[in-house]
């Protein structure tokens, strides 16, 4: 088993993964290889730490169709581990590769480290209630969410080998009508400040309270799953939680959110968490740095005014 492998269909994400890849490669004295479907990005991957880049050339632009190509290459080269960016496309591909290689797959690892010559991962379980630590079997796969690691500063003096391979892509599906999701606001996953709305807000008209507070703070607006899925007050792309968006702003402010474990799982990387809710025993306060217990309808307008000053 040789080599730490990195793959993502988004090159920025692959560059982030090379940071942890480099660390593991050095500790385990293994080569660090990046697999990509974009020939033009090979040099950037080398400058971000890769010792070798495999370029897969196929005739299908659909990233998921390269699962068989990656598996075939892995059978030949037997990497110690394959780390894949946990975008939804990446997770789909990782599961297919893991099945082809008959190997394990850790989804959404929050941490990866070397421990006594082996690779260990941490990941959430039970909606964020628990952390599961696993020792990865040889040849295993791990997916890692984007922005878990920061890309290294590019070192153009780093030298790497580039190998181009022709692969056969899967063609059992017809893909069409690719449309970008139209976002009304900014992308909340990269927002520096967030105001987040939960069921403590009783009526859709009252969303104005959040809009005003967000404007005063220079924040974007997110929500809980029920606000998006059950009430449709905000688009699905703005709900935060385990099955929604994971955010890491410097300020996250919860308005009328009880703090179910699945929601908290999406905000735990926030720098400062502030909660406003009338229920003193709401779990959100245990997850908060600062909080005010009280009626958000009274607190939020006054807070908005105070911040404006």
């Amino acid at each position, binding site marked *: 088993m040789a080599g730490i492998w990195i793959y993502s269909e988004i090159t920025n994400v692959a560059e982030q993964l090379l940071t942890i890849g480099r660390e593991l490669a050095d500790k385990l004295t293994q080569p660090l290889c990046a697999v990509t479907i974009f020939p033009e990005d090979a040099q950037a991957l080398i400058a971000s730490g890769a010792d070798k880049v495999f370029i897969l050339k196929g005739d299908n632009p659909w990233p998921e169709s390269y699962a068989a190509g990656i598996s075939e290459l892995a059978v030949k080269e037997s990497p110690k581990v394959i780390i894949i960016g946990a975008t939804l496309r990446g997770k789909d591909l990782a*599961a297919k590769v893991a099945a082809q290689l008959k190997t394990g*797959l850790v989804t959404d690892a929050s941490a990866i480290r070397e421990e006594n010559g082996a690779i260990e991962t941490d990941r959430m379980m039970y909606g964020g209630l628990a952390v599961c*630590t696993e020792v990865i079997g040889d040849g295993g796969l791990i997916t890692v969410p984007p922005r878990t690691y920061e890309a290294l500063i590019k070192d153009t003096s780093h030298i790497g080998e580039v190998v181009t391979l022709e692969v056969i892509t899967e063609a*059992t*599906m017809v893909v069409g009508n*690719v449309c970008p*999701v139209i976002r009304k606001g900014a992308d909340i996953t990269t927002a520096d400040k967030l105001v987040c709305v939960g069921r403590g807000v009783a009526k859709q008209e009252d969303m104005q309270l959040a809009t005003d507070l967000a404007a005063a703070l220079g924040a974007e607006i997110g929500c809980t799953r029920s606000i998006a899925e059950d009430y449709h007050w905000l688009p699905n792309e703005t709900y935060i939680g385990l099955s929604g968006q994971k955010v890491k702003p410097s300020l996250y402010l919860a308005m009328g959110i009880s703090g179910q474990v699945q929601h908290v799982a999406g905000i735990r990387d926030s720098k400062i968490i502030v909660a406003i809710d009338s229920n003193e025993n709401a779990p959100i306060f245990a*997850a908060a740095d*600062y909080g005010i217990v009280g009626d958000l309808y009274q607190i939020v307008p006054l807070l908005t005014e105070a911040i404006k000053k």
Partner: protein
Amino acid sequence: MPNIITCYKWVLDERDIKINPGNLALDTSRAKYKISEYDRNAIEEAALQATKCDAKVTSLTFGTSIAKQSLKDALSRGPEKAYWVNDAIAETADGFVTSNVLAAAIKKIGEYDIILFGEGAADTYGQQVGPRVATILGIPAITFVAEMSIEGNKVTATRKIGDCTEVVTAEFPVVITVLPEINKPRIPGLKQVLGASKKPVVEWKTTDLELGEGDLIPKNQIKSIKGFVMSRKNIIYKEGTLEENIKKLVVSLTKEGLL
């Protein structure tokens, strides 16, 4: 008449799990079980599609003896027949083992056109068993589906993948994993619950399936499962007047450099 198999996992309800503050061990002694929420969307979608194209819906689960309780619940949500692979190894099964068992069971069931899964299990949220099963069976997988329709021997599905949507078409047989937004699962009524007990149930052991020995051994070694502790400042203003508390919060946020 297409055959739909809808797979689900019988999981611990995380709301009933307590964490021992001393050693962070999980106390599941008082926890009840439930059909994983995401899989309820899969069962519901199977039932909805069945009314449109007269499909035959079968449910399939792999679980320990505890999963027996799940069968009536699953059947009350629409399927005509339930398959249950009952084995104690389900307790420690990972995505590799689970997909091997489900794929072997699906082969044994024999007739399948569409196999539905939720986007992930509510306990492990591994999001891998659906596409793994498709790969083992050598059939396409359309993952993260927000909308689907069946026409003839084809499924057309809209995937929602982060910043874009795309429409994917595949011929039977095909695996589909559905997003929670695809539907709102029904709450079974008394009539459905009573009707469920009359529906047929098939129980298999893993020894009834065509599996190699290695197929049932998990790939990664679980070192520990511990309660997650959020280390936060927990400064909660509740004693003073509204105005005082707001003032304190503004001072705190200013000190943090956030205002």
